[in-house]
């Protein structure tokens, strides 16, 4: 069966510091991978998605970036965090072999102070 991991689970970072969040998927090959942000009291905002290694599509212009160095690894980064980057970050996989739904990881709670 497929599993998806995210780490760290929680993170407190000062404004201006860098960020690296990691997501890995097990049990599937060549999945589509997604990064979402969920701000307090709001719905999900799609940040990036990837259909393959090195292929990244950005949905929202911001100071975040994403990379996919391996088939089942997806990384969310920032060089300098802003207060507005605080939120709950969710990674998801989906889109293989007619699977239209997405399966989510446990999330990372990021607080920028």
């Amino acid at each position, binding site marked *: 069966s497929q599993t998806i991991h*995210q780490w760290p689970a929680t993170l407190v970072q000062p404004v201006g510091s860098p960020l690296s969040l990691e997501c890995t998927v097990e049990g599937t090959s060549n999945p*589509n991978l*997604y990064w979402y942000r969920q701000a307090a009291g*709001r*719905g*999900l905002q*799609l940040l990036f*998605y990837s*259909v393959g290694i090195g292929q990244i*599509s950005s*949905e929202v212009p911001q100071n975040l970036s994403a990379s996919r160095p391996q088939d089942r690894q997806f990384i969310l980064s920032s060089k300098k965090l802003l207060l507005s980057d605080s939120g*709950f970050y*969710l990674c*998801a996989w*989906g*889109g293989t072999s007619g699977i*239209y*739904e*997405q*399966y*989510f*990881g*446990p*999330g990372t*709670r990021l607080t920028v102070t």
Partner: protein
Amino acid sequence: AQSVTQLDSHVSVSEGTPVLLRCNYSSSYSPSLFWYVQHPNKGLQLLLKYTSAATLVKGINGFEAEFKKSETSFHLTKPSAHMSDAAEYFCVVSDRGGGGADGLTFGKGTHLIIQP
């Protein structure tokens, strides 16, 4: 283009009574529809999915939803609420027939409160 409207931001029911969470959608293609549940500080869990098979879909934890094309609705129901059902629920539409790997559109969520 596709969109999802969850008609209630908050729903409060007593334990043991029925649950109804309402969702309307619009889609240019034959949609796939999903309900997800999110407990506090957790990821989203897929409750059920409709993908053009049976219009009445049964999911986990006793939830079910009925796809009604004429009403463009996909309401989520449960006959008897349990305290553990208290969570945020998201209605989601996918019209992958329109292309694009990012084809999910999320509703804004309904917060389900269970009164003891």
